[in-house]
């Protein structure tokens, strides 16, 4: 029998959060953490969590699994269970709405700051703005981000200053548009990042790289942004 400990908090009923213990017979199968949550929800319908695609594409079910942020749907029990115990908490650092559901407003506010869309005021060509295969290749490792917030909520700099530090997810996306050959707002984008918080609160501890369920490297992207700032300002 698998022991599962889950963070529970319903602000309408509970004075403060608590950990609730469950036991579950997994019949020895190496199922995903999301399957465990679904089975427990069948027993206790008040258990609340986000989920959608159940295949690591939508980014809805980011939770803290036995101390490490990840997507419940693509994390097998074999990678998450320690001493026959599975501990599931909400992603840390953002306000909890209920149980494993967090308020991601601050995360999206930082994403919005970096203007996550192509800016190009030159007349549009008849069909589309073309890129060479080399220019397109620069976006690999950047465009795959699904904004699950596992990285930003694993980052102490984001915990302490979620209103000022853009965070690894936002910065990965910032570089995705800085690196895009079709975007013409590079200087304006860089000017908005050159303060002591937006980019430079990253101290390169690489928690983001360790937890990214898509295997992306925000620290490397942040390094590229620093280099671009250095090149344009010196």
């Amino acid at each position: 029998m698998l022991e599962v400990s889950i963070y529970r908090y319903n602000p309408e009923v509970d004075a403060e959060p608590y950990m609730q213990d469950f036991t579950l017979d997994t019949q020895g199968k190496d199922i995903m953490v999301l399957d465990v949550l679904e089975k427990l929800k069948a027993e206790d319908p008040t258990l609340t969590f986000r989920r959608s695609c159940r295949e690591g594409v939508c980014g809805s079910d980011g939770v803290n699994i036995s101390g490490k942020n990840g997507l419940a749907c693509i994390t097998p029990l074999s990678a998450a269970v320690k001493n026959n115990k599975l501990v599931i908490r909400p992603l840390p650092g953002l306000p909890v709405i209920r149980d494993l559901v967090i308020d991601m407003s601050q995360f999206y506010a930082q994403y919005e700051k970096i203007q996550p869309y192509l800016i190009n005021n030159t007349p549009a060509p008849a069909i589309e703005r073309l890129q060479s295969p080399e220019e397109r290749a620069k976006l690999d490792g950047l465009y795959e981000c699904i904004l699950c917030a596992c990285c930003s909520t694993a980052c102490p700099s984001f915990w302490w200053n979620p209103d000022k530090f853009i965070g690894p997810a936002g910065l990965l996306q910032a570089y995705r548009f800085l690196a895009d050959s079709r975007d013409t707002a590079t200087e304006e984008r860089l000017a908005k990042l050159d303060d002591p918080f937006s980019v430079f609160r990253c101290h390169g501890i690489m928690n983001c790289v360790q937890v990214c369920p898509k295997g992306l490297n925000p620290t490397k992207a942040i390094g590229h942004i620093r280099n671009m700032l250095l090149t344009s300002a010196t």
Partner: protein
Amino acid sequence: MVTTVTNLGRSGLSDWLMQRLSAAVMTAYLLFILGYFFINPSPNYEQWVSLHSALPMRLFSLLTILSIAAHAWIGIWCVLTDYVTVRLIGPKATAIRLFFQLITIAITLFYTIWAIDILWGI
């Protein structure tokens, strides 16, 4: 863009660059002093004075002291703006943070001026 007025260089890039350059200067100074002790493990008073009264050495020591001051200020400023914030400890945080920033400036200035006095007093 986040506006700040108490960081060293007013821009994130300049603080970051200063942090790296000052670290390089401190490393060079440390290696030089370690090298000096490696070549001359127990210098007598005259040798020590002669080393530190040469102008290039005084300038190197001064550069290192200024690097320590800048490095310390940037580092402490980062720590204070991480942990001594309204978000973490409530509305008194701004006053407490400013107090510690002033203390840091006072200590840094005190040591820098004292070090210059020692260097040029040899």
